[in-house]
């Protein structure tokens, strides 16, 4: 311990800047990993917690196929009472318009209050003050009027609401005022969605959500909970066709599966920042070992064992990373706020309504951070630490065993990188593992490490080429910078590799996103042919509960300028063990007015036409890839009439959701699922009609009562790209952090190199180099490191982008992306990186220009 204090801690104190940069690098790496983990957890846990708190004591729940179940079916379920209490439920999201004009989403539960009090704990404030629960009769009286609801005390105090106030709420497409009849204390279901919860009578909720006669599920509270397994299997056997029994938590696991690929990809990205942080640890310990060889020699000479030397340097890494990880945890919590904000648009738009706040920093995150950060840091430090332990005492003290600083290219140095690249090729040919692109990431990692091993050789070639060119560009300072780089290839390779890895990921992601965006732009341009697109105001892309009132459909269809309105309905359906979207539209209208782009067969529209009137469907590409179904095969779907088989007639391109979409003609749907209510309307106008004017007119006719979003063709295109861009904003944010860490990785070794080169710089000053020339030389050197890194980053980034586009994306999301090079972005980022790295050389350059101790050159 004493040796650690004297030899390592004092050194770290003396090398403040390098220690700080390393700590900061690790901290940022860990912070990003933790922030992403928290973000992923927040979207999932928010959802799962809502399920858990809302379901209360419910043991089992019965759900229908797709759009819930008919309430008349309750009569056939009388026998359920043998198992326990039964309660029907309506659940959905509504939008509250606050006095400030702002809107907030609120989870609404519609229950039969007489039955439901046994399922959930409702502590109504008024009665709680009387130290008792409301009697069912009192409860019923509170919600007798269909325009009444009970909100939570938390929501009320947040928005200064009280019992008796009126609240503007939009359910599906209908806005109305509701009376607040009571306040729930912060217990039980009132805790769902952080208090954004309201309770209604089931009949009122059916009316409000346009679900008259429908139920979302029937909940069962078993008399004997210990028999849950037996009860579940018995009930399952007795249920009529089309109904299914589940435990409430299963809904959470389905969502978890749906989000898995999205979360996996985010996590993988977050590890890049950590990877760069680890390069920094390697760098710091290497420099520490290299610069202290004589000291190590002395320690070995006076009897310190090899094991102790190894431990000393590993503990240096451990000390730095422990501080870095601790800082990273705190920083991660703050970053998580930003990350939640950046991802929530995507998660809300494409998957589920998610929580707005990251979870608190608990022991689990602390353990994860240390479990990930510490071993990896020690692993990164192991190579230089082993080198330190191998130092021969006498040779090191004489300085005669110094590493040869001049790198010579030998063909055997190319074996490992080439092997890694070959391995990457093999990995990229493998399929997904449990739906995740594990081999895709292994391929990316192999390319990255292949690059890292290739860096010294590439530097060698580049400095050879650079000698004359740099003299032409920057005169003698350019040549000196190039020579310095040539002379320190083994040293700077790690920094250049770290920066290159980071930049290559940025390039790869930019190419992937650029290609994806171009593909989506093309797809949108080809497929969005209608004049107007409508949906209920409260409905996001996947909230299946918001449907149009029939009045709205009537108003639209009877408008004189409307030639056709394709009524579309979609909802979640369990397929296998995952959620897919089942959609239904009017194929005749779609074929006449719209345009889908088909992947297979060649004549897609004809295949689509053939599905009309028969049990056949068309599926999105992501469905076909994820579930490995192609044209001609059959899929089995759960319908209210039981399992049914449908022929896959065509596969079409779709980039609106990665969960997989199955679409059938309205006629087929009605046969199996019953009359659908529409969730969106695609409106085609008569020739010469002005879309904006019709939109205004429709909005006027719908008035205040109906809250409907109407997009014109151009605005829906903008909306698609807005969601697209916000989806990838987190990707860029992660990359910026990784690059920042990497730039730290350029500045610190450069400073160390400068300090080590004191003698040469002093000599240059003595023979006539002025301060400006020294500064220029160091800044060019830093810029050169940036330029080399960016060049390598561009080459490897393109390789990685192929893996991202053709392997990872296809396996994660089932999307075909057309390759497109975002030249503008690449040029812009190259300029930015060169500037940033050159700027990172300013401080080392200043330090260098202040050097000129004559002693440096006259003493050895």
């Amino acid at each position, binding site marked *: 311990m004493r040796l650690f204090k004297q030899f390592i801690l004092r050194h770290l104190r003396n090398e403040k800047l390098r220690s700080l940069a390393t700590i900061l690098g690790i901290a940022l790496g860990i912070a990003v990993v933790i922030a992403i983990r928290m973000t992923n957890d927040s979207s999932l846990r928010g959802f799962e917690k809502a399920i858990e708190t809302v379901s209360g004591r419910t043991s089992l729940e019965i759900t229908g196929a797709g759009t819930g179940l008919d309430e008349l079916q309750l009569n056939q379920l009388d026998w359920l009472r043998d198992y326990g209490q039964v309660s029907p439920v309506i659940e959905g999201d509504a939008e509250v318009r606050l006095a400030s004009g702002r809107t907030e989403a609120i989870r609404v539960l519609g229950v039969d209050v007489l039955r439901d009090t046994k399922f959930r704990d409702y502590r109504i404030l008024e009665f709680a003050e009387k130290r008792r629960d409301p009697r069912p009769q009192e409860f019923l009286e509170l919600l007798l009027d269909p325009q009444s609801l009970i909100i939570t005390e938390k929501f009320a105090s947040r928005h200064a609401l009280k019992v008796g106030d009126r609240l503007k709420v939009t359910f599906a497409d209908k806005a109305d005022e509701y009376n607040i009849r009571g306040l729930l204390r912060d217990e039980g279901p009132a805790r769902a969605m952080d208090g954004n919860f309201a309770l209604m009578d089931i009949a009122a909720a059916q009316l409000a959500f346009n679900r008259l006669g429908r139920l979302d599920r029937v909940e069962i509270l078993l008399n004997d909970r210990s028999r849950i397994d037996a009860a579940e299997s018995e009930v399952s056997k007795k249920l009529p066709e089309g109904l299914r029994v589940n435990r409430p938590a299963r809904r959470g696991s389905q969502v978890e599966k749906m989000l898995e690929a999205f979360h996996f990809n985010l996590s993988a990205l977050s590890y890049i920042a950590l990877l760069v942080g680890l390069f920094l640890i390697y760098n710091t310990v290497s420099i520490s070992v290299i610069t202290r060889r004589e000291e190590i020699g002395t320690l070995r000479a006076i009897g310190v064992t090899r094991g102790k030397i190894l431990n000393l340097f590993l503990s240096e890494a451990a000390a730095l990373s422990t501080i870095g990880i601790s800082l990273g945890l705190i920083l991660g919590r703050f970053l998580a706020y930003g990350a939640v904000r950046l991802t929530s648009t995507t998660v809300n738009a494409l998957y589920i309504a998610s929580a707005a706040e990251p979870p608190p920093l608990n022991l689990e995150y602390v353990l994860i951070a240390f479990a990930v950060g510490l071993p990896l840091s020690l692993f990164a430090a192991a190579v230089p630490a082993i080198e330190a332990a191998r130092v021969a005492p006498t040779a090191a003290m004489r300085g005669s065993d110094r590493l040869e*600083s*001049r790198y010579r290219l030998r063909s055997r140095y190319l074996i490992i990188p080439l092997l890694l690249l070959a391995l990457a090729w093999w990995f990229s040919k493998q399929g997904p593992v449990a739906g995740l692109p594990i081999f895709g990431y292994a391929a990316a990692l192999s390319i990255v490490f292949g690059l890292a091993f290739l860096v010294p050789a590439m530097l060698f070639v580049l400095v050879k080429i650079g000698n004359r060119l740099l*003299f032409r560009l920057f*005169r*003698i300072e350019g*040549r*000196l910078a190039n*020579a*310095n780089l*040539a*002379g320190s290839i083994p040293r700077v390779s790690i920094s250049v590799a770290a920066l290159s890895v980071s930049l290559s990921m940025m390039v790869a992601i930019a190419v992937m996103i650029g290609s994806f965006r171009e593909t989506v732009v093309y797809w949108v341009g080809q497929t969005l042919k209608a004049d107007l697109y409508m949906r209920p105001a409260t409905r996001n892309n996947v909230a299946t509960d918001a449907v149009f009132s029939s009045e709205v459909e009537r108003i639209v269809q009877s408008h004189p300028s409307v030639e056709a309105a394709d009524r579309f309905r979609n909802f979640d359906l369990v397929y296998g063990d995952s959620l897919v979207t089942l959609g239904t539209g009017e194929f005749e209208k779609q074929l006449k007015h719209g345009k889908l782009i088909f992947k297979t067969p060649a004549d897609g529209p004809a295949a689509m036409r053939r599905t009309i009137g028969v049990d056949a469907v068309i599926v999105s590409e992501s469905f076909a890839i994820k579930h490995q179904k192609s044209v001609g095969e059959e899929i089995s779907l759960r319908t209210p009439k039981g399992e049914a088989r449908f022929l896959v007639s065509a596969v079409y391109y779709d980039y609106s959701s990665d969960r997989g979409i199955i679409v059938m003609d309205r006629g087929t749907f009605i046969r199996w699922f019953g009359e659908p209510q529409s969730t969106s309307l695609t409106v085609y106008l008569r020739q010469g009609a002005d879309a904006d004017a019709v939109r205004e007119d429709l909005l006027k006719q719908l008035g205040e009562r109906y809250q409907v979003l109407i997009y014109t063709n151009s605005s829906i295109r903008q909306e698609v790209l807005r969601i697209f861009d916000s989806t990838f904003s987190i990707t860029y944010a992660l990359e910026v952090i990784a690059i920042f860490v990497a730039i730290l990785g350029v500045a610190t070794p450069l400073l160390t190199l400068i300090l080590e080169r004191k*003698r*040469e710089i002093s*000599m*240059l*000053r*003595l*023979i*006539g*180099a*002025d*301060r400006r*020339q020294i500064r220029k030389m160091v800044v060019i050197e830093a810029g050169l490191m940036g330029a080399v890194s960016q060049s390598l980053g561009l080459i490897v980034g393109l390789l990685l982008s192929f893996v991202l586009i053709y392997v990872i994306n296809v396996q994660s999301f089932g999307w075909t992306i057309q390759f497109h090079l975002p030249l503008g972005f690449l040029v812009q980022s190259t300029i930015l990186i060169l500037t940033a790295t050159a700027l990172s050389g300013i401080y080392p350059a200043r330090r260098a220009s202040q050097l*000129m101790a*004559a002693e440096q*050159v*006259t*003493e*050895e």
Partner: protein
Amino acid sequence: MILVVDNVIKTYVGGESPVEAVRGVSMELRQGEMVAIMGPSGCGKSTLLHLCGAMDRPTSGDLLIEGVNINKLNDDQLTRLRRERIGFVFQFFNLLPTLSVGENIALPLLLDGGSESEAARRASELAERVGLSHRLRHYPQQISGGEMQRAAIARSVIHKPALLIADDPTGNLDSDNGEKVLKLLGELNREIGITILLATHSAETAAAAGRVIHMRDGKVERVVVRGALQPSEESATHAIV
């Protein structure tokens, strides 16, 4: 007069107490002279050499190089003075390991903004003059100590300086190579008339100089002129050589 040192004192502040490394030294060097400074370690000879090479400024007293008082020059002007009028040779050669021998020799001209072709031509001429024309493309670590020192000498004169400062140029060489280097310095002194001020521990090296200034404790102890049997009678603390 190439160099005039007038009652120069150099004090280093730092540490616990100030250290007076040079205590009132005066001397003069005429065009084409070769003068050696001798003395034990810590006598102040290196400090005096640094001052004469415009690497540092005196704490008090005047130091004139070709009539220019270095006390009156700022850092940039001092740099320019060194770049244009002074050459340096050190005990440890101080070639840049990252540049080839040819590039090292050409460096002062290029730092002064000279053209690459002219610098390369001059470097090649000088390399031939010092017997290194076959080593131009080699790197310092690939040649011997004697060759490195000859390369350093070539570098020190490529820009035709008025004054060559040589700090123990043979101190790190075996006697054979040391002799060659001294011979080379002597030839340069005679043939191109360059003024040389060298510091050394070695009496043999000092013997190559026309005059030898012996220093002790920061002061000039005595001055020996080659050919003279007795040391100069002039005041040791105010010697004008």
